[in-house]
């Protein structure tokens, strides 16, 4: 049985691991467009300011060796679902018995004048981060388009030597991850680090001088000097090559609970997948590492004959530290509807927000104090009734012991 995986990041690797664990003899081929040793994608921002080097963010054990994979470092260009072939950019074809699509996602590039050419960066791959690292050493001013996690991480990595301005279209940064108050706290901390944040504004033109980026023009009319522009307005599933393949596509690649596409021998996992959100049931795409890892694992098991059902993902499940402040956001942050109850606890060094639906906890934000956060995540993910623990949960005195009978 020949298992072929398109995509060499976490969904593909965790699938390869699951396939190998279930079948010691299977032939597994991993196709990756990135010709580098497998690395931890969420770590790439730390390359920019030299906090870590490339070798520090690659897997300690190379999955290619560990799981005995054939590595093909080429772009896949199409899939022939009739003959069961993956077509490669070199013109070669690879035959599969089972195929996993784990192509991930690609940055969305806004269509604005001057966006093409030198000085414009995205932050999606190790190569992207290295390019920014190189540009940083000679840059004075940077503009980051987008106030999401990627944009903020890029801004923080640049700030020690470069003047950084984040331009956010909406009225707050970290929209969907934080509520307004949470975003205010993080904004203030970023500003204290010297980063400028402009909300409710957008870049309408990249101004160039002899090809080089010189400034950006904003919708509000002003211009900001920049020699680096980083685009971080979000990602979309990387699925263009499957458009005419016969594989069903909508917001992402459509799969059933086994993570199988409409073609029985073709599975999909990770950012490229469209599936239901665990709490809302809304069909959507997720671009989270942990979700990709879980999907890859389940798809890999099912490809080797298991019958594992994927329950769905949480769109929001983020932990990070920004400007020295730890933060965690899980579940539904801004609920719509009267059945939800929102409770906030705001103190000098901590902000907490709880979203309840009856006796169920459906969302939390912890900023500053993140102790025991995993207990809350578990309650949200598994929709465990609070029983009499709601007050303790809000006070922060709830522990695992409260769940032992």
């Amino acid at each position: 049985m020949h298992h072929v995986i398109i995509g060499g990041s976490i969904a593909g690797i965790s699938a390869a691991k699951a396939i190998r664990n279930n079948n010691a003899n299977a032939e597994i081929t991993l196709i990756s467009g990135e010709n580098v040793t497998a690395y931890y994608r969420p770590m790439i921002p730390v390359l920019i300011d030299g906090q870590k080097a490339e070798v520090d963010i690659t897997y300690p054990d190379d999955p290619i060796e560990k799981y005995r994979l054939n590595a093909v470092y080429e772009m896949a260009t199409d899939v022939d679902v009739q003959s069961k072939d993956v077509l490669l950019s070199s013109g070669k074809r690879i035959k599969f018995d089972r195929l996993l699509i784990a192509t991930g996602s690609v940055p969305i590039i806004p269509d604005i004048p001057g966006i093409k050419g030198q000085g414009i960066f995205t932050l999606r791959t190790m190569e992207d981060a290295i390019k920014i690292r190189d540009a940083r050493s000679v840059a004075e001013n940077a503009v980051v388009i987008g106030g999401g996690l990627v944009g903020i991480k890029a801004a923080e990595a640049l700030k020690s030597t470069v003047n950084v301005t984040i331009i956010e279209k909406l009225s707050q940064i970290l929209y969907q991850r934080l509520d307004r108050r949470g975003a205010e706290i993080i904004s203030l901390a970023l500003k204290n680090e010297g980063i400028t944040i402009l909300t409710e504004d957008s870049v309408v033109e990249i101004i160039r001088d002899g090809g080089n980026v010189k400034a950006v023009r904003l919708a509000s009319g002003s211009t900001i000097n920049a020699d680096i522009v980083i685009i971080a307005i979000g990602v979309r599933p990387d699925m263009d090559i499957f458009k005419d393949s016969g594989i069903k596509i909508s917001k992402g690649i459509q799969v059933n609970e086994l993570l199988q596409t409409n073609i029985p021998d073709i599975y999909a996992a990770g950012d490229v997948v469209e599936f239901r959100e665990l709490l809302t049931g809304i069909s959507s795409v997720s671009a989270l590492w942990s979700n990709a890892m879980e999907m890859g694992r389940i798809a890999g098991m099912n490809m080797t004959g298991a019958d594992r059902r994927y329950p769905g993902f949480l769109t929001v499940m983020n932990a990070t530290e920004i400007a020295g402040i730890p933060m965690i956001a899980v579940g539904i942050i801004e609920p719509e509807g009267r059945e939800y109850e929102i409770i906030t606890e705001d103190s000098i060094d901590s902000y907490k927000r709880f979203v309840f639906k009856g006796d169920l906890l459906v969302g939390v934000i912890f900023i500053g104090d993140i102790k025991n956060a995993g207990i809350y995540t578990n309650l949200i993910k598994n929709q465990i009734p609070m029983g009499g623990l709601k007050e303790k949960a809000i006070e922060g005195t709830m522990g695992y012991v409260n769940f032992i009978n």
Partner: protein
Amino acid sequence: MKQIFVRPERCMGCKSCEIGCAVQHSKDKTLYSAVLQSPAPMKRLFVEAGENIRMPIICRHCEDAPCLNACISGCLYRDEKGFVRRRKERCIGCWTCIMVCPFGVITRDREKHIAVKCDRCHKLEVPACVNACPTHALVMVDVDEMSKEKRHMVILTESKAISHQ
């Protein structure tokens, strides 16, 4: 293999296990120097009290460990004995492990800016917490032996119940 077994009915909540743990993870590994160490050494287990229960909450070194699965830096790994441990130099303090641990036993080292968790005192025969427990609320038990003992207890109680009928 021997596992740490917690017997809540024996726990007095004295927190000797917490102290034993912190001392073991201090620089000189003695109580006196640990007390003076600044910043104070960190414990990796937590005595908690519920309504009718007190017990130390310890890392389970889960078979399908959420922390290990979620780690984005390659810091957490499973060692040859099956314990979930850290490659400290890899941790960047992203706190993803804290977000997903359902037992709440991973904490932040604010000085070093890395996540801290139980290493099962992998160099010791008996973990420091177990060694420190005066009431044997924490014991090392062979898992197979434990179920044998439990079966034995059930048979004893059942047979007593029958003989009393």
